[in-house]
Protein backbone atom coordinates (compact mmCIF):
# COMPACT_ATOMS: atom_id res chain seq x y z
CA UNK A 1 0.00 0.00 0.00
CA UNK A 2 1.34 3.44 -0.93
CA UNK A 3 1.04 5.81 2.00
CA UNK A 4 -0.99 8.91 1.33
CA UNK A 5 0.78 12.15 2.24
CA UNK A 6 1.00 15.79 1.25
CA UNK A 7 4.02 14.78 -0.84
CA UNK A 8 2.05 12.11 -2.74
CA UNK A 9 -0.67 14.68 -3.52
CA UNK A 10 1.91 17.15 -4.89
CA UNK A 11 3.84 14.50 -6.82
CA UNK A 12 0.68 13.11 -8.46
CA UNK A 13 -0.58 16.62 -9.13
CA UNK A 14 2.59 17.26 -11.14
CA UNK A 15 2.44 13.95 -13.01
CA UNK A 16 -1.14 13.97 -14.26
CA UNK A 17 -2.61 11.94 -11.34
CA UNK A 18 -1.28 8.76 -12.94
CA UNK A 19 0.63 7.40 -9.96
CA UNK A 20 -2.25 6.29 -7.73
CA UNK A 21 -2.69 2.59 -6.94
CA UNK A 22 -6.11 1.09 -6.33
CA UNK A 23 -7.00 1.40 -2.65
CA UNK A 24 -7.75 -2.30 -2.05
CA UNK A 25 -7.49 -5.57 -3.97
CA UNK A 26 -10.40 -7.54 -5.44
CA UNK A 27 -9.27 -11.07 -4.53
CA UNK A 28 -10.87 -14.41 -5.39
CA UNK A 29 -12.07 -16.16 -2.23
CA UNK A 30 -9.67 -18.77 -0.85
CA UNK A 31 -10.96 -22.19 0.26
CA UNK A 32 -10.57 -21.39 3.92
CA UNK A 33 -9.83 -18.62 6.40
CA UNK A 34 -9.31 -18.34 10.15
CA UNK A 35 -12.21 -15.90 10.44
CA UNK A 36 -15.05 -14.87 8.14
CA UNK A 37 -16.80 -11.56 8.76
CA UNK A 38 -20.17 -11.29 7.01
CA UNK A 39 -20.90 -7.74 5.87
CA UNK A 40 -18.46 -5.17 4.45
CA UNK A 41 -20.07 -2.20 6.13
CA UNK A 42 -18.35 0.06 8.64
CA UNK A 43 -18.56 -2.42 11.50
CA UNK A 44 -17.45 -5.47 9.49
CA UNK A 45 -14.51 -3.63 7.94
CA UNK A 46 -13.46 -2.16 11.30
CA UNK A 47 -13.69 -5.60 12.89
CA UNK A 48 -11.42 -7.14 10.27
CA UNK A 49 -8.96 -4.26 10.60
CA UNK A 50 -8.69 -4.61 14.39
CA UNK A 51 -8.49 -8.42 14.13
CA UNK A 52 -5.44 -7.98 11.91
CA UNK A 53 -3.85 -5.07 13.75
CA UNK A 54 -4.64 -5.72 17.41
CA UNK A 55 -4.81 -9.51 17.43
CA UNK A 56 -2.50 -10.56 14.58
CA UNK A 57 -5.29 -12.55 12.88
CA UNK A 58 -4.71 -11.67 9.23
CA UNK A 59 -6.16 -14.70 7.46
CA UNK A 60 -9.57 -13.04 7.39
CA UNK A 61 -12.24 -12.69 4.70
CA UNK A 62 -15.04 -10.13 4.65
CA UNK A 63 -17.97 -11.37 2.57
CA UNK A 64 -20.29 -8.73 1.15
CA UNK A 65 -23.45 -9.50 -0.81
CA UNK A 66 -23.38 -6.19 -2.68
CA UNK A 67 -20.66 -3.58 -2.75
CA UNK A 68 -18.48 -2.35 0.07
CA UNK A 69 -20.16 0.34 2.15
CA UNK A 70 -23.47 0.06 0.28
CA UNK A 71 -25.66 -0.40 3.36
CA UNK A 72 -26.24 1.79 6.37
CA UNK A 73 -22.66 3.12 6.61
CA UNK A 74 -23.41 5.08 3.44
CA UNK A 75 -26.97 5.99 4.45
CA UNK A 76 -26.71 7.74 7.81
CA UNK A 77 -26.56 11.40 8.86
CA UNK A 78 -22.86 11.09 9.88
CA UNK A 79 -23.20 12.30 13.48
CA UNK A 80 -20.58 11.21 16.04
CA UNK A 81 -21.23 11.83 19.76
CA UNK A 82 -20.95 10.15 23.16
CA UNK A 83 -23.82 11.67 25.18
CA UNK A 84 -25.08 8.45 26.77
CA UNK A 85 -25.90 7.97 30.43
CA UNK A 86 -26.58 4.27 31.05
CA UNK A 87 -23.71 2.12 32.39
CA UNK A 88 -22.52 0.01 29.47
CA UNK A 89 -23.31 2.68 26.88
CA UNK A 90 -21.46 5.63 28.46
CA UNK A 91 -17.96 4.17 28.43
CA UNK A 92 -18.46 2.32 25.13
CA UNK A 93 -19.45 5.40 23.12
CA UNK A 94 -16.77 7.56 24.79
CA UNK A 95 -14.14 4.97 23.85
CA UNK A 96 -15.51 5.13 20.31
CA UNK A 97 -15.19 8.93 20.26
CA UNK A 98 -11.56 8.62 21.39
CA UNK A 99 -10.86 6.22 18.54
CA UNK A 100 -12.53 8.68 16.15
CA UNK A 101 -10.16 11.42 17.29
CA UNK A 102 -7.18 9.41 16.03
CA UNK A 103 -8.85 7.65 13.12
CA UNK A 104 -7.58 9.62 10.12
CA UNK A 105 -3.96 9.25 11.31
CA UNK A 106 -4.44 5.64 12.29
CA UNK A 107 -5.87 4.65 8.90
CA UNK A 108 -3.74 7.09 6.83
CA UNK A 109 -7.05 8.09 5.28
CA UNK A 110 -8.87 11.37 5.78
CA UNK A 111 -12.25 10.49 7.28
CA UNK A 112 -12.94 14.24 7.61
CA UNK A 113 -13.81 13.94 11.28
CA UNK A 114 -14.98 17.40 12.27
CA UNK A 115 -15.44 18.06 15.99
CA UNK A 116 -17.76 20.98 15.44
CA UNK A 117 -19.81 20.22 18.55
CA UNK A 118 -23.35 19.01 19.05
CA UNK A 119 -26.12 21.11 20.59
CA UNK A 120 -29.04 19.08 21.97
CA UNK A 121 -31.89 21.44 22.79
CA UNK A 122 -34.45 21.23 25.55
CA UNK A 123 -37.78 23.01 25.61
CA UNK A 124 -39.31 22.79 29.10
CA UNK A 125 -38.24 22.91 32.77
CA UNK A 126 -38.58 19.10 33.24
CA UNK A 127 -36.51 18.60 30.09
CA UNK A 128 -33.90 20.96 31.59
CA UNK A 129 -33.72 18.72 34.67
CA UNK A 130 -33.30 15.64 32.47
CA UNK A 131 -30.62 17.44 30.44
CA UNK A 132 -28.76 18.50 33.59
CA UNK A 133 -28.82 14.92 34.82
CA UNK A 134 -27.46 13.69 31.51
CA UNK A 135 -24.74 16.35 31.36
CA UNK A 136 -23.70 15.62 34.95
CA UNK A 137 -23.59 11.88 34.26
CA UNK A 138 -21.41 12.51 31.25
CA UNK A 139 -19.02 14.76 33.18
CA UNK A 140 -18.74 12.29 36.05
CA UNK A 141 -17.65 9.75 33.45
CA UNK A 142 -14.98 12.07 32.07
CA UNK A 143 -16.99 13.06 28.98
CA UNK A 144 -17.22 16.73 28.04
CA UNK A 145 -20.63 18.36 28.41
CA UNK A 146 -21.74 21.94 29.00
CA UNK A 147 -25.16 23.30 29.85
CA UNK A 148 -26.08 26.29 27.69
CA UNK A 149 -28.73 28.87 28.54
CA UNK A 150 -31.16 30.10 25.91
CA UNK A 151 -28.96 33.15 25.29
CA UNK A 152 -25.82 31.06 24.97
CA UNK A 153 -27.56 28.89 22.37
CA UNK A 154 -28.69 32.03 20.58
CA UNK A 155 -25.12 33.39 20.43
CA UNK A 156 -23.95 30.20 18.74
CA UNK A 157 -26.89 29.50 16.42
CA UNK A 158 -28.84 32.76 16.04
CA UNK A 159 -31.12 31.59 13.25
CA UNK A 160 -32.99 28.96 15.25
CA UNK A 161 -36.57 29.96 16.05
CA UNK A 162 -36.23 32.23 19.13
CA UNK A 163 -39.45 34.10 18.36
CA UNK A 164 -42.45 34.37 20.70
CA UNK A 165 -44.43 32.09 18.42
CA UNK A 166 -41.86 29.27 18.21
CA UNK A 167 -43.47 25.83 17.99
CA UNK A 168 -40.85 24.45 20.42
CA UNK A 169 -39.55 27.38 22.53
CA UNK A 170 -35.83 26.90 23.19
CA UNK A 171 -34.95 26.92 26.90
CA UNK A 172 -31.33 25.84 26.59
CA UNK A 173 -29.16 22.95 25.50
CA UNK A 174 -26.40 20.50 26.27
CA UNK A 175 -23.28 21.20 24.23
CA UNK A 176 -20.79 18.41 23.64
CA UNK A 177 -17.86 20.17 21.98
CA UNK A 178 -15.99 17.01 21.02
CA UNK A 179 -18.99 15.64 19.08
CA UNK A 180 -19.33 16.29 15.37
CA UNK A 181 -19.55 14.62 12.01
CA UNK A 182 -17.39 12.45 9.75
CA UNK A 183 -17.44 11.65 6.06
CA UNK A 184 -19.35 8.35 6.19
CA UNK A 185 -18.10 6.73 2.96
CA UNK A 186 -14.52 7.64 3.81
CA UNK A 187 -14.84 5.67 7.04
CA UNK A 188 -15.77 2.52 5.10
CA UNK A 189 -13.08 3.15 2.49
CA UNK A 190 -10.41 3.98 5.06
CA UNK A 191 -11.02 0.82 7.07
CA UNK A 192 -11.22 -1.23 3.85
CA UNK A 193 -7.87 0.07 2.61
CA UNK A 194 -6.18 -0.37 5.98
CA UNK A 195 -7.58 -3.90 6.48
CA UNK A 196 -6.66 -4.91 2.94
CA UNK A 197 -3.09 -3.71 3.42
CA UNK A 198 -2.82 -6.00 6.46
CA UNK A 199 -3.83 -9.00 4.33
CA UNK A 200 -7.60 -9.13 4.83
CA UNK A 201 -9.52 -10.31 1.73
CA UNK A 202 -12.56 -8.14 0.98
CA UNK A 203 -14.84 -10.20 -1.25
CA UNK A 204 -17.71 -8.26 -2.78
CA UNK A 205 -20.71 -9.65 -4.68
CA UNK A 206 -20.55 -12.71 -2.46
CA UNK A 207 -23.82 -13.34 -0.63
CA UNK A 208 -23.86 -15.75 2.30
CA UNK A 209 -26.64 -18.28 1.76
CA UNK A 210 -25.95 -20.57 4.69
CA UNK A 211 -23.76 -21.02 7.77
CA UNK A 212 -21.99 -24.41 7.90
CA UNK A 213 -21.73 -26.38 11.12
CA UNK A 214 -19.82 -29.50 12.10
CA UNK A 215 -20.68 -31.15 15.39
CA UNK A 216 -22.40 -28.07 16.74
CA UNK A 217 -19.47 -25.79 15.82
CA UNK A 218 -19.33 -23.32 12.99
CA UNK A 219 -17.17 -24.52 10.10
CA UNK A 220 -17.69 -21.92 7.41
CA UNK A 221 -20.22 -20.34 5.09
CA UNK A 222 -22.05 -21.29 1.93
CA UNK A 223 -21.96 -18.40 -0.48
CA UNK A 224 -22.96 -17.51 -4.02
CA UNK A 225 -19.24 -17.91 -4.83
CA UNK A 226 -18.91 -21.38 -3.31
CA UNK A 227 -18.23 -22.88 0.10
CA UNK A 228 -15.67 -21.03 2.24
CA UNK A 229 -14.38 -22.74 5.36
CA UNK A 230 -13.57 -20.90 8.57
CA UNK A 231 -13.18 -21.71 12.24
CA UNK A 232 -15.02 -18.57 13.30
CA UNK A 233 -17.78 -16.55 11.67
CA UNK A 234 -18.81 -13.06 12.78
CA UNK A 235 -22.06 -11.49 11.60
CA UNK A 236 -22.00 -7.71 11.13
CA UNK A 237 -25.05 -7.30 8.90
CA UNK A 238 -27.20 -4.79 10.76
CA UNK A 239 -30.58 -4.52 9.07
CA UNK A 240 -30.45 -8.17 8.06
CA UNK A 241 -29.32 -9.67 11.38
CA UNK A 242 -32.55 -11.63 11.93
CA UNK A 243 -32.27 -13.25 8.51
CA UNK A 244 -28.64 -14.31 8.95
CA UNK A 245 -29.35 -15.55 12.49
CA UNK A 246 -32.24 -17.67 11.18
CA UNK A 247 -29.92 -19.01 8.47
CA UNK A 248 -27.37 -19.95 11.12
CA UNK A 249 -30.00 -21.79 13.19
CA UNK A 250 -30.05 -19.27 16.05
CA UNK A 251 -33.83 -18.91 15.96
CA UNK A 252 -35.57 -15.62 16.64
CA UNK A 253 -33.78 -12.51 17.94
CA UNK A 254 -34.92 -9.52 20.03
CA UNK A 255 -34.75 -7.35 16.90
CA UNK A 256 -37.13 -5.80 14.37
CA UNK A 257 -35.95 -4.25 11.08
CA UNK A 258 -37.21 -0.72 10.49
CA UNK A 259 -36.25 1.90 7.97
CA UNK A 260 -34.89 5.30 8.78
CA UNK A 261 -34.76 8.13 6.28
CA UNK A 262 -32.16 10.81 5.75
CA UNK A 263 -32.32 13.96 3.67
CA UNK A 264 -29.87 16.36 2.08
CA UNK A 265 -30.69 19.77 0.68
CA UNK A 266 -29.19 21.77 -2.15
CA UNK A 267 -25.80 23.27 -1.16
CA UNK A 268 -25.96 26.52 0.79
CA UNK A 269 -23.34 29.03 1.96
CA UNK A 270 -22.06 28.24 5.50
CA UNK A 271 -25.12 28.46 7.74
CA UNK A 272 -24.84 25.99 10.60
CA UNK A 273 -21.57 25.49 12.51
CA UNK A 274 -22.86 22.80 14.88
CA UNK A 275 -24.82 19.59 14.86
CA UNK A 276 -28.20 20.56 16.32
CA UNK A 277 -30.76 18.06 17.60
CA UNK A 278 -33.96 17.96 19.58
CA UNK A 279 -36.34 15.24 20.69
CA UNK A 280 -39.63 15.64 22.48
CA UNK A 281 -43.13 14.23 22.10
CA UNK A 282 -44.23 15.67 18.76
CA UNK A 283 -40.83 16.27 17.24
CA UNK A 284 -37.55 14.46 16.69
CA UNK A 285 -34.89 16.02 14.50
CA UNK A 286 -31.13 16.31 13.94
CA UNK A 287 -29.29 18.44 11.42
CA UNK A 288 -25.81 19.43 10.34
CA UNK A 289 -24.27 21.08 7.30
CA UNK A 290 -21.91 19.06 5.13
CA UNK A 291 -18.62 20.42 3.82
CA UNK A 292 -20.28 20.72 0.41
CA UNK A 293 -22.95 22.95 1.96
CA UNK A 294 -25.90 20.56 1.93
CA UNK A 295 -28.08 20.50 5.02
CA UNK A 296 -28.06 16.85 6.17
CA UNK A 297 -30.94 15.90 8.43
CA UNK A 298 -33.32 13.24 9.64
CA UNK A 299 -35.98 12.41 12.18
CA UNK A 300 -38.11 9.45 13.17
CA UNK A 301 -38.35 5.95 11.75
CA UNK A 302 -41.11 5.05 9.31
CA UNK A 303 -42.70 3.17 12.25
CA UNK A 304 -43.47 -0.20 10.68
CA UNK A 305 -41.29 -3.26 9.97
CA UNK A 306 -39.54 -2.96 6.65
CA UNK A 307 -36.49 -4.16 4.73
CA UNK A 308 -37.08 -1.72 1.87
CA UNK A 309 -34.28 0.82 1.52
CA UNK A 310 -36.72 3.55 0.57
CA UNK A 311 -38.81 5.84 2.73
CA UNK A 312 -42.43 6.93 2.81
CA UNK A 313 -43.87 10.40 2.27
CA UNK A 314 -45.62 10.99 5.64
CA UNK A 315 -42.24 10.93 7.44
CA UNK A 316 -40.85 13.21 4.73
CA UNK A 317 -43.55 15.70 5.68
CA UNK A 318 -42.99 15.16 9.41
CA UNK A 319 -39.23 15.75 9.14
CA UNK A 320 -39.73 18.82 6.95
CA UNK A 321 -42.12 20.19 9.60
CA UNK A 322 -39.52 19.56 12.33
CA UNK A 323 -36.87 21.32 10.21
CA UNK A 324 -38.95 24.44 9.73
CA UNK A 325 -40.03 24.48 13.39
CA UNK A 326 -36.34 24.62 14.36
CA UNK A 327 -34.95 26.81 11.57
CA UNK A 328 -37.64 28.82 9.78
CA UNK A 329 -34.97 30.01 7.31
CA UNK A 330 -34.99 26.50 5.78
CA UNK A 331 -38.56 26.93 4.59
CA UNK A 332 -37.74 27.55 0.93
CA UNK A 333 -34.72 25.34 0.40
CA UNK A 334 -35.04 22.44 -1.98
CA UNK A 335 -34.11 18.87 -1.18
CA UNK A 336 -31.46 17.27 -3.32
CA UNK A 337 -31.81 13.68 -2.18
CA UNK A 338 -33.71 11.53 0.26
CA UNK A 339 -33.09 7.87 1.04
CA UNK A 340 -33.63 5.20 3.69
CA UNK A 341 -31.50 2.61 5.44
CA UNK A 342 -32.61 -0.51 7.29
CA UNK A 343 -32.03 -0.43 11.06
CA UNK A 344 -31.81 -3.32 13.48
CA UNK A 345 -34.13 -1.95 16.15
CA UNK A 346 -33.41 -3.95 19.29
CA UNK A 347 -35.91 -4.47 22.10
CA UNK A 348 -34.05 -2.13 24.48
CA UNK A 349 -32.49 0.28 22.00
CA UNK A 350 -28.98 -0.99 22.77
CA UNK A 351 -26.71 -3.02 20.48
CA UNK A 352 -25.58 -6.62 20.73
CA UNK A 353 -21.90 -7.57 20.45
CA UNK A 354 -21.83 -11.08 21.74
CA UNK A 355 -20.96 -14.72 21.53
CA UNK A 356 -23.95 -16.85 20.56
CA UNK A 357 -25.32 -20.24 21.58
CA UNK A 358 -23.35 -21.71 18.65
CA UNK A 359 -19.58 -22.22 19.12
CA UNK A 360 -17.55 -20.09 16.74
CA UNK A 361 -20.48 -17.85 15.75
CA UNK A 362 -20.41 -14.23 16.90
CA UNK A 363 -23.08 -11.56 16.57
CA UNK A 364 -22.79 -7.81 16.06
CA UNK A 365 -26.12 -6.06 15.51
CA UNK A 366 -29.08 -4.24 17.02
CA UNK A 367 -27.56 -0.81 16.36
CA UNK A 368 -30.86 1.08 16.14
CA UNK A 369 -30.21 4.72 15.15
CA UNK A 370 -26.69 4.72 16.53
CA UNK A 371 -24.45 2.49 14.44
CA UNK A 372 -22.31 5.06 12.65
CA UNK A 373 -20.72 6.76 15.66
CA UNK A 374 -20.05 3.34 17.17
CA UNK A 375 -18.11 2.05 14.15
CA UNK A 376 -14.56 2.15 15.62
CA UNK A 377 -15.49 0.81 19.07
CA UNK A 378 -17.82 -1.78 17.60
CA UNK A 379 -15.04 -3.13 15.39
CA UNK A 380 -12.56 -2.98 18.26
CA UNK A 381 -14.85 -4.88 20.68
CA UNK A 382 -16.13 -7.37 18.12
CA UNK A 383 -12.56 -8.20 17.05
CA UNK A 384 -11.59 -8.73 20.67
CA UNK A 385 -14.66 -10.92 21.29
CA UNK A 386 -13.85 -13.08 18.26
CA UNK A 387 -10.10 -13.30 18.91
CA UNK A 388 -10.43 -14.19 22.60
CA UNK A 389 -13.75 -16.04 22.42
CA UNK A 390 -14.81 -13.76 25.27
CA UNK A 391 -16.21 -10.22 25.37
CA UNK A 392 -14.02 -7.16 25.85
CA UNK A 393 -14.90 -5.32 29.07
CA UNK A 394 -16.46 -2.54 26.97
CA UNK A 395 -19.03 -4.85 25.36
CA UNK A 396 -19.54 -7.21 28.30
CA UNK A 397 -23.02 -5.71 28.86
CA UNK A 398 -24.06 -5.99 25.19
CA UNK A 399 -24.92 -9.69 25.44
CA UNK A 400 -27.67 -11.48 23.57
CA UNK A 401 -29.00 -13.13 26.73
CA UNK A 402 -29.49 -9.87 28.67
CA UNK A 403 -33.17 -9.84 27.70
CA UNK A 404 -33.79 -13.24 29.23
CA UNK A 405 -31.87 -12.25 32.36
CA UNK A 406 -33.61 -8.91 32.87
CA UNK A 407 -30.45 -6.89 32.19
CA UNK A 408 -31.68 -4.68 29.35
CA UNK A 409 -29.98 -1.31 28.81
CA UNK A 410 -32.93 0.90 27.95
CA UNK A 411 -31.41 4.38 27.52
CA UNK A 412 -34.76 5.92 26.60
CA UNK A 413 -36.96 3.92 28.98
CA UNK A 414 -39.32 3.06 26.15
CA UNK A 415 -39.76 -0.63 27.00
CA UNK A 416 -39.71 -3.58 24.58
CA UNK A 417 -41.15 -1.64 21.61
CA UNK A 418 -38.41 -1.44 18.96
CA UNK A 419 -39.94 1.38 16.93
CA UNK A 420 -39.84 3.71 19.96
CA UNK A 421 -36.08 3.51 20.67
Amino acid sequence: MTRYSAWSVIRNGLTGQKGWDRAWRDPEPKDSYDVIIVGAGGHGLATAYYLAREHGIRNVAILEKGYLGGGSVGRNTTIVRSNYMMPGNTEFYEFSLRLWEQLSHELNYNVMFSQRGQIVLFHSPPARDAAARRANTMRMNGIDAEMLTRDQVRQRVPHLDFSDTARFPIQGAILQKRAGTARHDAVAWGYARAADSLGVDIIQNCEVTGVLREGGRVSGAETTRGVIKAGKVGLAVAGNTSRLAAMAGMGRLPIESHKLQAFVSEPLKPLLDYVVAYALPGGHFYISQSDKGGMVFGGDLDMYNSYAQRGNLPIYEDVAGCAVALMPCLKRIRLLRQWAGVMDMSMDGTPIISKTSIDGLYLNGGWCYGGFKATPASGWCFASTIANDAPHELNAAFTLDRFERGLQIDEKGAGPVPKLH
Partner: protein
Amino acid sequence: MLRIPCPFCGERDHTEFSYGGDAGVDYPQIDSTDEKAWYEAVFLRENPRGPHKELWQHNYGCRMWIVVERDTMTHEIFSAEPAHPGVKAQLEKEAAK
Protein backbone atom coordinates in the same frame (compact mmCIF):
# COMPACT_ATOMS: atom_id res chain seq x y z
CA MET B 1 -47.93 5.87 1.67
CA LEU B 2 -49.35 2.44 2.45
CA ARG B 3 -53.05 2.06 1.65
CA ILE B 4 -54.63 -0.29 4.17
CA PRO B 5 -58.00 -1.88 3.29
CA CYS B 6 -59.78 -1.58 6.64
CA PRO B 7 -62.49 -4.27 6.76
CA PHE B 8 -64.88 -1.74 8.34
CA CYS B 9 -64.04 1.58 6.66
CA GLY B 10 -62.51 0.64 3.31
CA GLU B 11 -59.10 1.57 1.93
CA ARG B 12 -57.36 4.34 3.91
CA ASP B 13 -53.90 5.94 4.24
CA HIS B 14 -51.68 4.22 6.81
CA THR B 15 -51.31 7.54 8.66
CA GLU B 16 -54.86 6.95 9.98
CA PHE B 17 -53.53 3.85 11.74
CA SER B 18 -51.00 3.12 14.46
CA TYR B 19 -48.67 0.15 14.18
CA GLY B 20 -48.94 -2.63 16.76
CA GLY B 21 -46.18 -4.98 15.62
CA ASP B 22 -46.05 -8.71 14.94
CA ALA B 23 -49.53 -10.29 15.10
CA GLY B 24 -48.12 -13.79 15.45
CA VAL B 25 -46.88 -13.43 19.02
CA ASP B 26 -48.28 -16.12 21.28
CA TYR B 27 -48.74 -14.48 24.71
CA PRO B 28 -49.04 -16.69 27.79
CA GLN B 29 -52.10 -16.47 30.04
CA ILE B 30 -51.87 -13.32 32.17
CA ASP B 31 -51.37 -15.34 35.38
CA SER B 32 -48.75 -17.61 33.83
CA THR B 33 -45.43 -17.83 35.69
CA ASP B 34 -43.62 -19.51 32.80
CA GLU B 35 -40.70 -17.08 32.49
CA LYS B 36 -39.40 -18.57 29.26
CA ALA B 37 -42.79 -18.18 27.57
CA TRP B 38 -42.99 -14.55 28.72
CA TYR B 39 -39.42 -13.87 27.54
CA GLU B 40 -40.20 -15.28 24.10
CA ALA B 41 -43.48 -13.37 23.78
CA VAL B 42 -42.11 -10.03 24.98
CA PHE B 43 -38.70 -10.02 23.30
CA LEU B 44 -38.31 -12.49 20.41
CA ARG B 45 -39.57 -11.73 16.90
CA GLU B 46 -39.53 -13.59 13.59
CA ASN B 47 -38.77 -10.31 11.74
CA PRO B 48 -39.15 -11.81 8.25
CA ARG B 49 -38.17 -10.19 4.98
CA GLY B 50 -41.35 -10.99 3.06
CA PRO B 51 -44.95 -11.66 4.14
CA HIS B 52 -45.58 -10.52 7.73
CA LYS B 53 -48.81 -10.60 9.72
CA GLU B 54 -48.99 -7.47 11.83
CA LEU B 55 -51.41 -5.48 13.96
CA TRP B 56 -52.64 -2.02 13.08
CA GLN B 57 -55.24 0.05 14.95
CA HIS B 58 -57.47 2.35 12.93
CA ASN B 59 -57.14 5.31 15.33
CA TYR B 60 -58.65 7.92 13.03
CA GLY B 61 -61.43 5.66 11.78
CA CYS B 62 -63.33 2.82 13.44
CA ARG B 63 -60.65 2.41 16.19
CA MET B 64 -60.69 -1.35 15.58
CA TRP B 65 -57.54 -3.49 15.73
CA ILE B 66 -56.94 -5.34 12.48
CA VAL B 67 -54.46 -7.96 11.28
CA VAL B 68 -52.77 -6.95 8.05
CA GLU B 69 -50.62 -9.31 6.01
CA ARG B 70 -47.98 -7.22 4.28
CA ASP B 71 -44.69 -7.88 2.51
CA THR B 72 -41.89 -6.13 4.44
CA MET B 73 -39.77 -5.84 1.29
CA THR B 74 -42.27 -4.77 -1.40
CA HIS B 75 -44.90 -3.34 1.01
CA GLU B 76 -47.61 -5.19 -0.93
CA ILE B 77 -50.68 -5.78 1.25
CA PHE B 78 -52.33 -9.18 0.86
CA SER B 79 -55.17 -9.08 3.39
CA ALA B 80 -56.69 -7.16 6.30
CA GLU B 81 -59.14 -8.69 8.75
CA PRO B 82 -60.45 -7.93 12.24
CA ALA B 83 -58.04 -9.00 14.99
CA HIS B 84 -60.93 -10.05 17.27
CA PRO B 85 -61.97 -13.60 16.31
CA GLY B 86 -65.64 -13.04 17.27
CA VAL B 87 -65.88 -9.86 15.21
CA LYS B 88 -64.16 -11.58 12.32
CA ALA B 89 -66.67 -14.47 12.42
CA GLN B 90 -69.58 -12.04 12.58
CA LEU B 91 -68.24 -10.06 9.61
CA GLU B 92 -67.82 -13.26 7.59
CA LYS B 93 -71.35 -14.35 8.52
CA GLU B 94 -72.82 -11.05 7.34
CA ALA B 95 -70.80 -11.16 4.13
CA ALA B 96 -72.17 -14.65 3.38
CA LYS B 97 -75.82 -13.48 3.61
